[in-house]
C-alpha cells in the first residue's frame, strides 16, 4: 500500500486538521508516514500545502516527486489547480468548489471551473454547504476528508476512529458532528465517482 497525497488550501482553512486525522489513522494501522507542512509566514492567508505520504514500506523523501501524487485534496478550487504538476496520470483530484477570494486578481470563477471540468478523475463539491447541513460550517474540512476517504487507502472506519481520537477531548457533541460531516462528504464522493 502506498498513497501520496497533496493537501492544499488557503492559510487558516484547516488542511492540517485533515492531515492530523489521516496521520492518526495511519499510525494506528502501523503504516509508515511522512507529512511535510508549511508553517510561518505563508499561513497568513497565503496558499498552503502539505505533502502527506503513507506506505506499508519505509518512505524516503518527505516531498512527493512531480507526477506521482495519487490524490490532491484541496479546500479551495484554484489551490487545487496549483499542484496539478504533481498529480499522477490516473490520480484523483478532490476539491471544494467554493472559491476563497482574498486577492484582487482572483481569476473568473467560470475559468477555474472549466479547468477542473477537463480533468479525467475528480470530485468537486461545496463542502461549506454540506457542512452547514450537518451542523456547523466549521466541519467543512472534515466533509472534505470524507469526500477524499475512498482514495486514501485506509478503511473508512479507521478514519472515523481517527476522528474519535483527535476530537475526543473536545466532547461527544463535537465528535458526533465531525463524524456526520465525514459521512456526508463520503456519500457525496461515492455518488460522484460513478
Amino acid at each position, binding site marked *: 500500500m502506498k498513497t501520496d497525497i497533496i493537501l492544499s488550501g488557503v492559510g487558516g482553512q484547516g488542511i492540517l486538521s485533515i492531515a492530523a486525522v489521516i496521520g492518526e489513522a495511519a499510525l494506528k494501522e502501523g503504516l509508515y508516514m511522512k507529512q511535510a507542512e508549511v508553517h510561518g509566514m505563508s499561513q497568513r492567508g497565503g496558499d498552503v500545502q502539505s505533502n502527506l505520504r503513507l506506505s506499508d514500506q519505509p518512505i524516503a523523501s518527505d*516531498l512527493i516527486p512531480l507526477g506521482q501524487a495519487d490524490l490532491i485534496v484541496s479546500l479551495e478550487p484554484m489551490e487545487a489547480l496549483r499542484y496539478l504538476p504533481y498529480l499522477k496520470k490516473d490520480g484523483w483530484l478532490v476539491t471544494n468548489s467554493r472559491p476563497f477570494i482574498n486577492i484582487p486578481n482572483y481569476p473568473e470563477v467560470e475559468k477555474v471551473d472549466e479547468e477542473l471540468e477537463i480533468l479525467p478523475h475528480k470530485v468537486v463539491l461545496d463542502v461549506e454547504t454540506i457542512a452547514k447541513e450537518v451542523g456547523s460550517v466549521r466541519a467543512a474540512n472534515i466533509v472534505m476528508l470524507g469526500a477524499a476517504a475512498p482514495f486514501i487507502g485506509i478503511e473508512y472506519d479507521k478514519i472515523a476512529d481517527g476522528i474519535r481520537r483527535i476530537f475526543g477531548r473536545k466532547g461527544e457533541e463535537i465528535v458526533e458532528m465531525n463524524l456526520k460531516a465525514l459521512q456526508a462528504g463520503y456519500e457525496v464522493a461515492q455518488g460522484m465517482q460513478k
Partner: protein
Amino acid sequence: MEKHLFLGDEAVAQAAIDAGLSGVYAYPGTPSTEITEFIQGSAAAKERGIHCRWSTNEKTAMEAALGMSYAGKRALCCMKHVGLNVAADCFMNAAMSGINGGMIIVTADDPSMHSSQNEQDNRMYGNFAMIPMFEPSNQQEAYDMVYDGFELSEKLGYPILLRITTRMAHSRAGVVRREPRKENEMHTPEDGRQRFILLPALARKRFKTLIAAQDAFTASSEASPYNAYFDGSDKELGIITTGIAFNYLSENYPDGFEHPVLKISQYPLPRKMVEKIVGECKEILVLEEGYPVVEEQLKGFLGLGIRVHGRLDGTLQRDGELTPDAVGKALGKPIASYYATPEVVEQRPPALCQGCGHRDMYEALNEVLVEYKDAKVFGDIGCYTLGALPPFRAIDTCIDMGASITMAKGAADAGVYPAVSVIGDSTFTHSGMTGLLDCVNENTNITIVISDNETTAMTGGQDSAGTGRLESICAGIGVDPAHIRVMVPLKKNYDEMKAIIREEIEYKGVSVLIPRRECIQTLTRKKKASKK
C-alpha cells in the same frame, strides 16, 4: 515499539527532555519555534521544572544556555538560521571555552526562504567555530542525535551544532522514544577559570586545545552510526549526500543504489570514508541541502584533482532547497509530469489579517506621509513586513532584526527626512533597544513606530519580552516622555493618530509612537478558550 507522530522539531524537543534536559533557551523563529513550544507544553518538563521561557533574543538565549552548561546541567538552545548571526559572538566563543554540562545548539535553516530573508547555510558556522555538527536525515535520527548528543558533547567537551532544515523541522513521521534519563546534578567546572575566562593569554591556549580536539571530532564522525557507506557496482560516479538529500536520492533509486553512496549526517567530514569514495569512483556528485559546503571542501579553490559535481558546476541549481525532482534531474532520471498548472492560477501571497492593528497603523501613516514626498520608512522583521505588499506598499527596507531603527538613524544622519522606523514590540526588545540608545545619545531626528500587538505574532503568538513596559523602557533609555505617544490603532481614531504622527515628524528629535492593540489571532484564541 510505540511510535509517536512527531514533527522534526518535536522529535528534537522530546529527545532533549528524555536525555535529561534542564533548560531550553530560544527566541521564536520559523522553522525552529515548535521545539521550545513542545517543551513548554510537555507535562514532564513542567513536573521537572525544565526552564523553557522565551529569551529576549538568540544571543541572550545562547549565553544563558552556556551558563546552564557551565553549572553542569544539560542545555538546549534553538533558533532559526539568521538567529545564529545574532548569537554568533557567544557561539564562536563557546567553541573556545568548551562546555561543562552537555550543550546542543539547534539551527533551523530555511533554504528556499519559505519564511526568511536569506537562505544562509549554518554548517558554515559549524565549520567556522570548528565544533562537531549533526545533520539528521529523518525524524528518528533527529531524536537519536539529540538523545545521544548531550553525552557526546560532554565526552568531547564542546557544544554540538544540530542543523535541520525546513523540511526536517516541519515534517511529521513516526519516532520511537528511548528511556528517559535523569537530569545532571549541578556541578561547576573544576578548571572553570582556565576555560571560561577568554583573556588573550588563556584564549591562545584554548584555541590550541580546540585545534587539537579536531582529531577526536573526526574520529567521532568516522565511527558515527549516522554516517554510512553503501556500495554500488557502477563506480563511474560516487554520490555523497548530506542530511535529507539522502532521502531524495533514495526516492530516485527505489530498488537500491547503482553507484557507491556516502551518506553524511555528522561532521567534521569523516575523512577516511570520503577518501574511500573518492578513491573508488571516477567522478563525484555532491547532494547537499543549502550551500555547496562539502562540495567546496572536496574541490578546493582551484578545483584540481577529482571531478566534483554539485551546485557549483550547475549539475544542481545553485539556490533553493533540494527536491526529489531536482536530484532526479541531476542524475539524469526522466521526470514525468502529466498536468500543467493552468494559466488562470494566480499567486496568493500572505497578507495582514483582517482586523489587524498593523493595518490601521499603516493606513494612518500612509495618509500622513503623502504630505512628505521625501519620507523613507525603514521596516523590520515581523507580520508588519507584509506592509511592503499592496494595498499598503508602506515600507522601503527590511534587512534584519532591529535594523529599522539603526538604518533610519544612519539615513537621518545622511539627511533623510522624515526618517521613519516601523518595528514590532518583540523585535524592538530583541534588537531595537540598543539602536534607540544610539538615537537618544545623538538626539537623532527620527520617528520610531513600535507597532505593539503584545505578542510575537508572526511565529504564532509567543510571549513578547517587553509587554506592558514599552513606554518605561523607552523612557529609561532616555526618550523624552513628552515624545512617547501611545494610540489605539482603530479606524475611528485615524484623525487623532494622524495628528500625532504629524506632530512627531515635525518634532526635531527622537519620537516613539506606540500604536497598541492586541493581535487579532491571540485575541480570538483567548476568546475561544474563555468560552470553554
